[in-house]
């Protein structure tokens, strides 16, 4: 393999121009550099490669982080870097209230995979092996924990809900509410939050023993044994993850599974439940079939009815033998004499709960009202032949013992004689969980039902109902006892009655002692069925609850924790700086029309396009203008006479970012933007009149309306001070809010807000608003250029066909859908930091004008080297999340450039040798931007073309250039 060594970082050559830094250490994915060896020499000269590696530490980065051929060192992320970061909501759900976790005290209960829970502080030192449960509104899924840090003491508050769930958290901990994520500081009593009432069982380490070995399969074909060994289920240990999945499958199978034809194992349930069983089958390395659907007619007591039955099967003989060996014997269950698996009593409570809850999911009836406000005993029952009844009895007796060890009481096992079937005499056995409220609460919140979503949702409602009922009973108990005390002290019954919001009879009975046992919840209290109709449980098993108290709970050490739900998602801030980009405007003029008038043109442009520091803007803006621009982008320009409709049709996103939220842009940023609407700024930003010197693809150039010798105008700038202020504001806010997460990253400038967090949402809204501002900024400059040309050439701009070719940003993070590992389609925040979107024909985001040909890409070069127009390449989607380079990277520092060049000389040389007319506010800027300080843009474009990520269409060369 060809490798390239760059000062401690080794790159492996994948193929021509493609180099990979393999995943290692804290990298979440590999990194790739797209470059020739010459460019690689330049790229490896500064910290670019290290920064690229650092970027892969960001949680949620998919596939690989990519460095474009023009990459160079930036802040945090390298300039020329592209990363696709998963947008899906990732967060962790602590036992009671909450959603995303950050800043929670060590005593907070956290839900872990396999129905376990633990205190947050117990995760220290072993979080990497653990999976926390993540609720994303759609589902509840286990995810790896990626970040775990302890921070200094912070003030914490206790939040209590109407059903008695309590959680302590810092003021900035986000809670899920109907309005989205809301920080604790913004919550008040009476607000609705979503809670997760299921608690699970305390985590404990299982003691290690061998469950199955090769000897258990002595009579089997050696090939079958090899299949099991290959899947790591042989030998099978009590501490294997696979074993935990098998416990669930086994429990469910004993309920609603059966063996079919040779090698087949069938599972029956509702489609959504079967999905979860299938996933467990996959976890142990076997392939489930698709879900089958068939209509069956049944006859019960002479009534015939139709129902649809859903099922899936596995056809691996090895899998079937595995289940048999674990204790699910073949032959009809009724006479097979199965009992509890013999290893069961050696397992931890949470492991036994996996087995039993899966069985309950299949077999136990769901929570329902026995009588208005009381719930039935949830029961399981089974039919056995008389000869095997003892085995069945033993099975239930073990179940009683298990539940008893968790403090859950059961009734005696009942035994009924039944109508015997044709072959055997049978008996029916039944076991129920006692139905007093506290007992049912323990059962539903610790064990409950597994796989069966309907029963799970129902049991969540039951938990909340019983908790509410308990609180009401406690309230009434208190009143009863106080009333009695008052009566004993000589108060009149009439006065006591007036004291409480409760009916008089209740007070009387409390005083006269006419009540046996605890009070009942009262008439107005809803029945269970009525309650169930009032509340909704999400698929993630969260349910609305009401905040009843928020109290300070002192200062405590808190933990920051982050999870990767498929990929925890981050919007990285430091990446996306000024939303700068380029646009190119065409004309029907040729170089002949301009030659001899360059001086006049450059002077007129310089006089009319504000540039440099403090030069104002094309539009004297008001605060309202800034709001409107942030909100509506180019539509504002159109409404105010600065654009024609065709301009919007040729702009990325048609010039309006719909996700913009101006209210998330600070007043400071708006203040800075107000007097910079339509201004170039300085540094590397510029405006250039250019001529087309080369056309490489005639057909594409024709579609774009480009031909040799044609005059075009290129504008390169961004959102100015406003965009920078947005970036600085959020960088500082992320630093303060997510300090713990930040410490885990190798570079502070990689500041990232966890997606799903309020801050990430705010930042995305603000950034989209700044992008709108950037488009308007470039549009107003283009408008100014049209007017200058009209004056200089004495023709209308429509006559000169001064049409926008395209406007494309190269400093931007956008939500886009791309194919990631294993061909999966994911929504990503694609971060392009000094990289240009390069979508080929067919991507739905493209404007109709380019949907069949691919988008134009404009790559500005330095003053002496000219620029390029490319077309989005077919390979960009698979290689670079649809991106290519954005220009020529710097070679030389600004200070060095000023020492080597003098602005006046550079200007003279360019005019005399290259016929390029340059005018700038500052001679220093000209020196700093001299042609010699940039990398060779030709080589950058050659690599882009060879890789097929951006196809070379045309090359342009400057005629006039103005800058700050």
């Amino acid at each position, binding site marked *: 393999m060809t490798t390239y060594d760059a000062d401690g970082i080794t790159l492996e050559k994948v193929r021509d121009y493609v180099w990979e830094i393999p995943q290692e250490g804290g990298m979440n994915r590999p990194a790739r550099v797209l470059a020739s060896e010459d460019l690689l020499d330049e790229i490896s000269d*500064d910290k670019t490669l290290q920064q690229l590696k650092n970027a892969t530490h960001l949680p949620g980065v998919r596939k690989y982080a990519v460095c474009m051929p023009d990459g*160079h*060192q*930036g*802040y*945090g992320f390298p*300039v020329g870097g592209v990363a696709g970061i998963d947008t899906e909501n990732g967060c962790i759900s602590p036992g009671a209230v909450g959603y995303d976790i950050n800043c929670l005290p060590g005593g907070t209960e956290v839900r872990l995979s396999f129905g376990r829970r633990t205190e947050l502080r117990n995760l220290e030192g072993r979080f990497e092996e653990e999976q926390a449960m993540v609720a994303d509104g759609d589902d509840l899924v286990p995810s790896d924990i990626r970040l775990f840090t302890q921070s200094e003491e912070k003030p914490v508050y206790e939040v209590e809900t109407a059903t008695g769930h309590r959680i302590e958290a810092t003021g900035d901990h986000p809670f899920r509410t109907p309005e989205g994520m809301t920080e604790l500081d913004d919550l008040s009593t009476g607000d609705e939050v979503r809670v997760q009432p299921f608690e699970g069982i305390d985590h404990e380490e299982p003691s290690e023993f061998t469950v199955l070995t090769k000897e258990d399969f002595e009579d089997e074909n050696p090939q079958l044994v090899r299949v099991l060994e290959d899947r790591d289920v042989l030998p099978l240990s009590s501490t294997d993850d696979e074993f935990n999945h098998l416990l669930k499958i086994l429990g469910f199978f004993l309920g609603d599974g059966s063996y079919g034809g040779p090698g087949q194992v069938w599972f029956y349930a509702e489609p959504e439940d079967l999905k979860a069983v299938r996933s467990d089958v996959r976890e142990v390395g076997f392939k489930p079939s698709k879900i089958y659907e068939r209509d069956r007619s049944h006859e019960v007591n002479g009534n015939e009815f139709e129902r649809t039955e859903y099922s899936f099967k596995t056809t691996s003989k090895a899998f079937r033998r595995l289940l048999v060996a674990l204790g699910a014997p073949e032959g009809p269950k009724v006479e097979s004499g199965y009992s509890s698996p013999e290893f069961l009593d050696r397992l931890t409570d949470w492991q036994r709960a996996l087995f039993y809850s899966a069985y309950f999911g299949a077999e136990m009836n769901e929570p329902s009202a026995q009588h208005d406000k009381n719930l039935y005993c949830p029961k399981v029952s089974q039919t056995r032949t008389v000869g095997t009844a003892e085995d069945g009895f033993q099975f239930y007796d073990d179940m009683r013992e298990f539940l008893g060890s968790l403090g859950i009481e059961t009734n005696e096992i009942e035994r009924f004689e039944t109508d015997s079937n044709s072959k055997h005499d049978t008996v029916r056995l039944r076991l129920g969980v006692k139905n007093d409220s506290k007992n049912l609460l323990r059962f539903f919140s610790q064990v409950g039902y597994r796989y069966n979503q309907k029963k799970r949702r129902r049991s969540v409602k039951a938990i909340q109902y019983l908790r509410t009922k308990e609180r009401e009973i406690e309230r009434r108990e208190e009143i009863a006892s106080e009333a009695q005390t008052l009566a004993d002290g000589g108060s009149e019954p009439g006065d006591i009655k007036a004291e409480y919001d409760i009916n008089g009879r209740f007070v009387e009975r409390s005083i006269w002692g006419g009540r046996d046992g605890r009070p009942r919840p009262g008439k107005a209290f809803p029945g269970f069925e009525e309650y169930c109709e009032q509340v909704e449980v999400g698929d993630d098993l969260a349910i609305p609850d009401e905040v009843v108290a928020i109290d300070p709970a002192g200062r405590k050490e808190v933990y920051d924790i982050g999870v990767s739900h498929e990929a925890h998602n981050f919007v990285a801030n430091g990446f996306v*700086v*000024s939303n700068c980009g380029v646009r190119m405007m065409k004309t029907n003029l040729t170089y002949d029309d301009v030659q001899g008038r360059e001086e006049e043109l450059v002077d007129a442009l310089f006089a009319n396009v504000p540039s*440099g*520091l*403090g*030069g104002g803007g094309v539009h004297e803006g008001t605060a309202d203008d800034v709001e409107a621009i942030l909100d509506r982008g180019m539509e504002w320009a159109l409404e105010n006479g600065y654009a024609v409709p065709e301009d919007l049709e040729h702009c990325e996103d048609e010039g309006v970012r719909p996700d913009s939220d101006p209210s998330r842009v600070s007043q*400071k940023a708006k*203040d*800075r933007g107000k*007097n*910079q609407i339509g201004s170039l*700024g*300085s*540094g590397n930003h510029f405006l250039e009149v250019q001529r087309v010197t080369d056309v490489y693809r005639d057909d594409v150039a024709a579609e774009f309306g480009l031909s040799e010798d044609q005059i075009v105008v290129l504008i390169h700038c961004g959102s100015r*001070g406003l965009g*920078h*202020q947005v*970036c*600085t504001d959020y*960088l*500082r806010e992320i*630093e*303060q809010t997510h300090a713990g997460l930040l410490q885990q990253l190798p570079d*502070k*400038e990689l500041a990232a807000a966890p997606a799903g967090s309020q801050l990430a949402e705010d930042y995305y809204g603000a950034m989209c608003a700044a992008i709108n501002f950037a488009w308007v900024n470039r549009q107003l400059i283009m408008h100014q250029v049209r007017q200058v040309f009209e004056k200089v050439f004495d023709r209308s701009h429509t006559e000169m066909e001064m049409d926008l070719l395209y406007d494309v940003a190269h400093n931007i993070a956008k939500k886009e859908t791309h194919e990631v590992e294993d061909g999966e389609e994911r929504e990503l925040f694609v971060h392009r930091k000094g990289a240009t979107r390069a979508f080929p024909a067919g991507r739905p985001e493209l404007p109709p004008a380019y949907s069949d040909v691919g988008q134009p890409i404009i790559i500005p070069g330095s003053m002496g080297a000219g620029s390029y127009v490319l077309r989005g390449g077919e390979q960009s989607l698979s290689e670079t999340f649809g991106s290519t380079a954005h220009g020529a990277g*710097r070679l*030389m*520092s*600004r*200070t*060095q450039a000023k020492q080597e060049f003098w602005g006046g000389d550079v200007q003279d040389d360019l005019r005399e040798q290259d016929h390029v007319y340059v005018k700038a*506010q*500052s*001679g*220093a*800027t000209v020196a700093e931007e001299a042609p010699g300080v940039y990398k060779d843009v030709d080589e950058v474009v050659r690599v882009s073309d060879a890789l097929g990520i951006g196809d070379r269409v045309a090359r342009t060369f400057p005629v006039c250039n103005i800058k*700050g």
Partner: protein
Amino acid sequence: MSFDLREHTADVAVEATGESLGEVFGAVADGMAAAMCDEIPAEGGERFETTVAAENREALLFDYLDELIYERDVRGVLPVDNEAAVGEAEGEWRVDCSARGIPLDSVDARDLKAVTYSEMDLSETDDGWHAYVVFDV
């Protein structure tokens, strides 16, 4: 107090020293002005004052410089001859500062976009304080 402009590939860095925190802050700010303008007039412009607070020293330096960039854009002046007094009370750091604001249209100045945390240093030395700040140009 003194400052130097240091080389940085794409941008510009300021290295400064001062006997006190206030002095080193002022020196970095003067360095920032020098990075924007080669010839700063000795006179002209009016002094303005402002106050910035933050959670620690580095953050305060960052916010202080960011505030000066903001004042520059909003007031349309180049902040020079910077003076700063830095103090801490109850965990909050605060700088009371002033600068002479030279109107931008009377100087030949270039934009400097933002302060960065990149390679930032603010440390105590035998002689006082040392600071290094990179600016995004």
